[in-house]
């Protein structure tokens, strides 16, 4: 039997004050991009070669850096090295095995505790949302990291439009299942579909985005085309790719890696140098393209000022 509890947060209080106070810090990140645009710099810093890339990288990325003045990783590095087990467990596999994937046309099914459920065509779902560059650090749980200029929109702007009800406490995302186009899905390496989730306040946080592109270009298949989650203060595996469903739920979703190895992965997966993973110390990371794993990992991946209030009073050793 299900016993309804009153929601802890009234829907009217879902955007806390700290969120708009913090807006300054990410606006600064966005401003970096705008500055690059204004300068109209010519040469391309990110001179990658992707045989499937037909467009040129826009000039605004030439001088773009993160808000901590970090260099961007090259387009080539970002698009040839990542985890996306649907295309294989090797980190080159997504790039090498995703050629048959057809991201368009695309539908997203919205369900659960909201007033606007339904099957949406991607264009309809995203029409009118403000697209922008967001330069974020991506910290993989395997202790490597990159700096990536995503292109996308704030998840909150989409979720607000879908009108979650007051008892929606979590958002759950699922990746598409297409074993005929995704060779990694032909075996049960993980329990497909890939599931990820966020607590409502995390999902509504202005740093949380859905990306439709990288380096100002359409998101390549290997990076989660056409729509993926990016939560920069969490380990990379939270960034569920090729999203086909968004559900508002009351219970904490069981995310795929927690299901796979519960003693190693939790739901929150906040970047935390003080809590090590059984296989990797999380105190340091290899900031590619550096060869040395000597870059000190920052609490919440360097976004502590913006997000630590979300976890006030929580035992971060326990809630991994």
């Amino acid at each position, binding site marked *: 039997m299900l016993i309804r509890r009153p929601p802890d947060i009234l829907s009217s209080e879902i955007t806390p004050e700290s969120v708009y106070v913090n807006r300054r810090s990410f606006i600064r990140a966005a401003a970096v991009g705008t500055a690059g645009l204004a300068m109209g710099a010519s040469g391309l810093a990110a001179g990658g070669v992707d045989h499937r890339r037909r467009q040129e990288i826009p000039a605004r990325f030439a001088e773009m850096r993160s808000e901590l003045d970090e260099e961007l990783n090259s387009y*080539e590095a970002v698009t040839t090295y990542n985890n996306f087990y649907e295309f294989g467990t090797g980190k*080159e596999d997504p790039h090498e095995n995703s050629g048959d994937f057809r991201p368009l046309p695309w539908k997203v099914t919205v369900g659960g505790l909201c007033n606007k459920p339904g099957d949406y065509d991607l264009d309809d779902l995203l029409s009118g949302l403000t697209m922008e560059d967001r330069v974020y650090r991506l910290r993989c749980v395997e202790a490597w990291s990159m700096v990536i200029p995503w292109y996308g929109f704030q998840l909150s702007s989409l979720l607000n439009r879908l009108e979650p009800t007051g008892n929606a406490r979590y958002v759950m995302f699922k990746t598409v299942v297409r074993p005929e186009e995704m060779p990694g899905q032909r075996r049960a390496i993980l329990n497909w579909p890939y599931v990820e989730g966020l607590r409502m306040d995390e999902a509504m946080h202005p740093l949380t985005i859905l990306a439709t592109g990288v380096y100002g270009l359409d998101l390549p298949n290997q990076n989660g085309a056409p729509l993926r989650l990016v939560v920069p203060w969490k380990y990379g595996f939270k960034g569920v790719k090729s999203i086909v469903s968004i559900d508002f739920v009351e219970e904490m979703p069981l995310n795929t890696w927690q299901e796979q190895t519960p003693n190693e992965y939790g739901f929150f997966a906040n970047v935390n140098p003080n809590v090590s993973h*059984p296989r990797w*110390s999380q105190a340091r990371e*290899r900031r*590619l*393209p550096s060869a040395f*794993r000597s870059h000190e990992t920052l609490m919440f991946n360097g976004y502590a000022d913006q997000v630590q209030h979300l976890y006030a009073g929580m035992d971060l050793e326990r809630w991994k």
Partner: protein
Amino acid sequence: MSPRRAILGSKVVLWLGALTPGAWLAVGMYTGALGPNPIEKLTHVTGMTTLVLLLVTLTVTPARRLTGWNPLIKLRRPLGLFAFFYAVVHFSIWFVFDMVFNVGWMLEDIAERRFITVGMAALLVLTPLAVTSTRGWIRRLGKRWVKLHRGIYLAAALGVVHYYWLIKADSRLPLLLGACLAVLLLARTPLVTKRRFPGGPKEDRGAPATRDQGGADGRRSTRVSGSARTG
């Protein structure tokens, strides 16, 4: 083909085969073919090469019994030393690029992460085997040499477990290597050796190949184990 030529040919194949992964990595470092995270690639390829070479080393004795062709034993020492060489490179890459020469971090990792604990144990077990692979040590240790060098069974098992514990999902490859190791170890039990080869050689089981070792081989092995100590 004369037996002499056959064993020479086998040695050429052995050297080419064992040097290929290293050469491929060296060229890849230069051309950028190792991708955006070349250190990870170096670590994986040297680790995998170590495991495969350990298993190939363990294949020599069963293969010799199966074929009755005793000169095969001459391949065992260079195979084992190549395995050790890749293990040392594997460890060195980790120590230099992941631990950044920091012994404290290294000890912490060895203590806290079980896959590193067993990997380190495997290397420690292999080291005295490499050091005592020379003719001089074989002579000096006598029967104890055979006992000592059974340590390769333990080292190979630890190596496979190291790999198995490292994998996040999809354990097919470490399990396959584990199955190969199990077959190779079973082939050494009296159950198999007595039944299949009742008239086969018994007391030479695992015996050191003291004879027919060229001087060049001896020098090479000394050098490999020497560099291991400094690495």
